[in-house]
């Protein structure tokens, strides 16, 4: 702006014969430029409002605006679904390709209205509310792409949720007319109510070539395992009724049957059960005096008494979900929502999402034939398991049944997991409710394994400048038979480590690592030089540990490779007065931490400490130059759920003559700071992971009346 002004003011000088008339041109020009800039500025300021008005007009669209497509009578019909289809035969995986996010791309066809040559639509309902919800959920998700060429999965906008409202032949023709149909390859259809009278097929009757079917009510004979996806039948009540979660526990009724379309043979059987077991069973039916419609769907009756549905489901421990003409029942969704354990009686039914959900933890499946034994079977299930199932049932509903969005995205995730199996969601991710996910521990070293003695351990000595003490420590440790390597972490940037010739001569390799910064976390770095699993972290002033004690410590670590095994033990206590945690180093009967001034642990924990430490703990430790050992204890206890192991009796570990320096640990402020650490870490971890135990490990014959020379570790606990 400013420069252009200067330029125009210089104009007359360049053109000396310029007249006033021309100057007006310049001014006009100038103002045009100015106005343009202002306009641009305005545009920049309110771009959202401009775009959102565009959105708003888009929102106003009506189903009836969708283009009308007329199907010729002779239009081709796809083949019936091929029962032998599997992902590797009927699905084109090249379209999904390799992508670093391991996520499939899904394309949705724009809405079209198909009519036959006479102008009669192919479906009596057209686009249903549920299918619309499903498609908009998918289009809002990460799976969606609007680029048809990049898509891996195609979803037609033709609504086939309910076969009853479809004209089979015309629907099939419409599918075949889709521009990318290509024998149904990579196409996904959603259907919840398959089949029709009189024999009610268990899969959609519309011929569909190789298209995948996400179907509600598959039987084991129509379900193509690993290809189709079994989905629930959505219950419209899910959206209308808000049932608050109830605490698991015993309910007023033991078994409840609330379905209305039960075959009379089965109803007779249920009546018989009711007679035998009385009040424990509640057997409801539709209310005869109410008219059909939404209102009657919300009521159930028994001998003139009216109950609210689905609220009544919450009053029972088990709820019967019996097959109707179809195998899939919307009642299953209501039952789960109520936190009632479904008792499924539908032979050969493939339960919803059974590919990933472990229904054994949330439901009871009883063969139809055994309906009469239902009561005895359910009574044999212990209470605790029932409560577990109630919780699980509710969680399944919340995560996978509660909305069309949940159903749609779960289906896509299952297909996604098949295409990228190495990045698939785990059993725990699918099946564990959030509460369990947070509280459960998943030890990364879960295999019970006692590593062989031979590889030995690597001692990592953190040192700053106490060279004399360091050399004594090195000499002492080098006597331990299982020592494989010594690694000195030189944490002093101002001073070089002593010359090679000055170091003690030892029989194992000795490596010195110089660090860039004087940080405590350098002690826990997973150095490549550490080639053994076992790491002994040791301070440069711990000179009083005997070779027997160290060797024994290593033997104990081999029995507990997933724990910290250390010498000085410490405890955390709850201070009732202050209402917070307190650090304790006195003579206590309990242990919850071991100091890493001398401790064995798995190298994996170095990696965890360095790369996976939650929150800002690592920086905090480095900034305060304290509590790295407490942090390590928290980390290990949190991931394994196990207490550390303290070995051998209590003794003085540092040199007797350096008590003055030793004062550091005893210093009152130091203790306060360590209490602070515990409180800080507990809040970062969101829990107190440390476990308290009352035992320590000693050699089998420790202090036993037995000749010392026959003991493997005689020199233990001597001061």
């Amino acid at each position, binding site marked *: 702006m400013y420069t252009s002004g200067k330029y125009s003011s210089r104009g007359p000088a360049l053109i000396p014969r310029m007249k006033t008339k021309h100057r007006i041109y310049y001014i006009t020009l100038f103002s045009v430029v100015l106005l*343009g800039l202002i306009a641009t500025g305005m545009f920049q300021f309110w771009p959202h409002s401009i775009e959102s008005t565009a959105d708003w007009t888009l929102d106003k669209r009506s189903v009836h605006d969708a283009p009308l497509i007329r199907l010729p009578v002779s239009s081709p019909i796809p083949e019936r679904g091929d029962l032998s289809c*599997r992902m590797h035969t009927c699905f084109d995986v090249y379209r999904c390709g390799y992508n670093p996010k391991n996520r499939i791309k899904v394309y949705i066809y724009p809405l079209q209205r198909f009519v036959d040559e006479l102008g009669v639509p192919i479906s009596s309902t057209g686009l249903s509310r549920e299918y619309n919800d499903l498609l908009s959920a998918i289009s809002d998700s990460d799976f969606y792409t609007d680029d048809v060429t990049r898509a891996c999965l195609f979803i037609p906008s033709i609504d086939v949720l309910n076969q009853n409202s479809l004209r089979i032949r015309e629907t099939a023709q419409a599918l075949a007319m889709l521009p990318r149909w290509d024998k149904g390859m990579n196409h996904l259809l959603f259907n919840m109510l398959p089949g029709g009278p009189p024999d009610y097929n268990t899969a959609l009757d519309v011929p569909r070539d190789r298209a995948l079917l996400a179907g509600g009510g598959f039987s084991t004979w129509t379900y193509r395992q690993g290809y189709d996806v079994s989905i629930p039948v959505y219950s419209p009540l899910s959206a209308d009724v808000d049932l608050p979660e109830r605490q698991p526990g015993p309910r007023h009724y033991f078994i409840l049957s609330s379905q209305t379309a039960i075959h009379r043979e089965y109803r007779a059987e249920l009546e018989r059960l009711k007679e035998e077991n009385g009040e424990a069973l509640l057997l409801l039916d539709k209310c005869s005096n109410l008219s059909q419609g939404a209102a009657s769907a919300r009521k159930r009756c028994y001998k003139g008494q009216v109950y609210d549905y689905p609220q009544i489901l919450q009053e029972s421990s088990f709820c019967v979900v019996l097959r109707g*003409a179809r195998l899939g029942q919307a009642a299953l969704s209501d039952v789960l929502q109520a936190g009632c354990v479904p008792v499924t009686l539908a032979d050969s039914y493939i339960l919803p999402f059974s590919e990933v959900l472990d229904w054994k933890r949330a439901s009871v499946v009883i063969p139809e034939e055994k309906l009469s034994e239902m009561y005895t079977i359910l009574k044999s299930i212990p209470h605790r398991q029932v409560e577990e199932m109630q919780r699980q049932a509710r969680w399944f509903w919340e995560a996978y049944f509660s909305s069309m969005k949940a159903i749609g995205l779960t289906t896509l995730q299952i297909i996604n997991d098949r295409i990228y*199996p190495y990045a698939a969601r785990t059993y725990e991710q699918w099946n564990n409710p959030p509460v369990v996910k947070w509280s459960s521990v998943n030890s990364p070293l879960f295999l019970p394994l006692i590593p062989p003695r031979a590889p030995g351990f690597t001692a990592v000595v953190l040192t700053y400048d106490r060279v004399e003490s360091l050399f004594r420590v090195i000499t002492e440790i080098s006597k331990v038979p299982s020592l494989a390597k010594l690694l000195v972490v030189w944490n002093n940037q101002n001073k070089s480590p002593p010359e090679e010739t000055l170091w003690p001569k030892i029989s194992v390799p000795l490596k010195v690592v110089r660090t860039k910064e004087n940080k405590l976390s350098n002690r826990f770095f997973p150095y490549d030089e550490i080639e053994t699993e076992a790491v002994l972290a040791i301070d440069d002033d711990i000179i009083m540990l005997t070779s027997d004690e160290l060797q024994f410590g290593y033997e104990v670590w081999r029995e507990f490779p997933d724990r910290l095994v250390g010498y000085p033990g410490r405890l955390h206590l709850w201070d009732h007065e202050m209402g917070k945690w307190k650090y304790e180093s006195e003579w206590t009967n309990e242990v919850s931490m071991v100091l890493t001034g001398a401790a064995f642990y798995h190298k994996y924990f170095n990696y965890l400490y360095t790369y996976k430490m939650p929150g800002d703990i690592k920086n905090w430790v480095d900034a305060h130059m304290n509590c790295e050992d407490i942090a390590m204890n928290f980390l290990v206890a949190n991931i394994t759920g196990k207490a550390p192991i303290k070995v051998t009796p209590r003794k003085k570990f540092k040199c007797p003559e350096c008590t003055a320096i030793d004062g550091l640990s005893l210093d009152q402020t130091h203790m306060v700071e360590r209490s602070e650490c515990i409180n800080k870490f507990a809040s970062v971890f969101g829990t107190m992971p440390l476990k308290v135990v009352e035992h320590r490990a000693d050699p089998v014959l420790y202090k036993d009346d037995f000749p010392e020379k026959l*003991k493997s570790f005689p020199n233990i606990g001597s001061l």
Partner: protein
Amino acid sequence: MQAKKRYLILLSAGACLVLLFYLGGVQLPAASRSRHDRSRNGHRPEQPWPHFSDPLHLFLPWDQTDTEDYNLHISPRQKRDINTSVYKGKRCRMDSCFDFSLCRKNGFKVYVYPQQKGEKISESYQNILSTIEGSRFYTSDPGQACLFVLSLDTLDRDQLSPQYVHNLKTKVQNLPLWNDGRNHLIFNLYSGTWPDYTEDLGFDIGQAMLAKASISTENFRPNFDVSIPLFSKEHPRTGGERGYLKYNSIPPFRKYMLVFKGKRYLTGIGSDTRNALYHVHNAEDVVLLTTCKHGKDWQKHKDARCDKDNAEYDKYDYKEMLHNSTFCLVPRGRRLGSFRFLEALQAACVPVMLSNGWELPFSEIIDWNTAAVIGDERLLLQIPTTVRSIHQDKILSLRQQTQFLWEAYFSSVEKIVLTTLEIIQDRVLEHASRSSLMWNSHPGGLFIQRTNKTSFVCSLFQIIVLWNCDKPLPAKHRWPATSVPVIVIEGENKVMSSRFLPYEIIVTDAVLSLDEDTVLSTTEVDFAFTVWQSFPERIVGYPARSHFWDSNKERWGYTSKWTNDYSMVLTGAAIYHRYYHFLYTNYLPTSLKSMVDQLANCEDILMNFLVSAVTKLPPIKVTQKKQYKETMMGQSSRASRWADPDHFAQRQTCMNKFASWFGAMPLVHSQMRLDPVLFKDQVSILRKKYRDIERL
């Protein structure tokens, strides 16, 4: 004037251009930035599926919900019968081809046809049959059986194989109990023959179930057939080697990333994948080797690559690669499954499956994504990128899982067969079957029997006295008064194993098992109980014993001497989980239990074997007062069975009997004992919680 005008036009045109450029230039980044912002806020730039404003119908109108008119139609019972008659052969399912009623009376019992003279049976099949006969499922009475297993060898159905059994069709049809194969289980490892290796067994299996290796998803009848792994005839009958993983190195990468060494088929049999492997081979960390040198006339068919491939093939040692690779490729060979699979699993080399359409072994219960990488043959070229993208943590867990699965289900013929039977049993007892979690985590499905765990009830809750003597019970007033209920059970058979019956009366998880001559102080028991709470899966107790390999006598030895280590804790004074009562009674074979009963000895050794086989860990010894040990060793109780001179020799024999049934020595040594934290420390005894333990 003209020049001026021209100048002016030029200038204004230039200005317009600048203006346009400026506007456009500003607008473009602005627009793109705003799009960026919005997508970060979770909005999308364009709404591809429009929000329709008009009211839409429900997919299931309210008036349709219960008008299925079901009642008017066929009875569900009839419908079931129709299913049973329609779904046969390739469409068999448990619902249509299995008679559940046979299992209802006597539970899940398996009958093996008696072996006929003159029928040759391969070693592998013999192993399968003797495993079943030695298992707790076995019954010799076909009237009690729920499942039938042929004594005709069906393992190898390759007509070119020497093991091939001829005329199987008529032999099977002539079996008196065949009943069109209903409730029969047929084991098969190889089917079909050169060149197309179909999965046809060469005889009509009727409604029988298949336990088959290399079965394809197309032919696999879900929840009816069982896919078993291909195992060689050297595969041990029981026990079996443990996995090769000894320690978890960090970082978890090994020398090679991905290896394979195997045959390549030149005549068009087998998969093309093996022919294409050389594209991915890089001779550094991805080593995929094939050879053409197999069969008699390979020279005839050899192609341009053969000589080069063969030369490269000979450069590497298979065993060395197997043990030093992070991932092992398991590509399809002539058949879908190959030996490579079990080899890789045992070697803790994470299998990378390239065998489209193979129904993986025990897929019904095993979640293979936790122990293997399931690749797609069509995406061979992506395999290196894929395995490299797998995170270190995942590798660590995949590798450990291979070892768990190997040891739980694959390491011996016995495990493979028992797993197969347990899977079928779970289908039969559906409402009480094991969840996927139980199958896929330690200690595995074979050790998780049908039982229901209950919660912790603290400390001493009740005392159960098992009166295992022929003398009558003492009168009521002679029992000491206690604050907890004392329950006396009079053993019915007065045998040793009744100590470990899963008495329903035991409601706590922890069981403190004591001999009648044991003297323990409450402090000692309290301490042992707190220790047990940290190790509920192990035996925690006092008197420890050890085993050793006696190389002179070539057998296991038992010692009660004081040693620096131990591998057993006697159940004369020990705490353990009551679940082991259940396992002892239900998992162990009758042969071992009756041996214990006859000898009236060794029940504690057997319990230690069992617990260590489950946990793969040693028991835990806790510290004790000296006095107890003396009572124990000094045989103060005159009637004690410890006084018997044969006692010790018997225990030696027991050890070897047990070890042979378990197939390997499950006991593990430990060198440590757990003491109270302040045990014998130089501090006032008043500060110690368990001070009684130190007092004599």
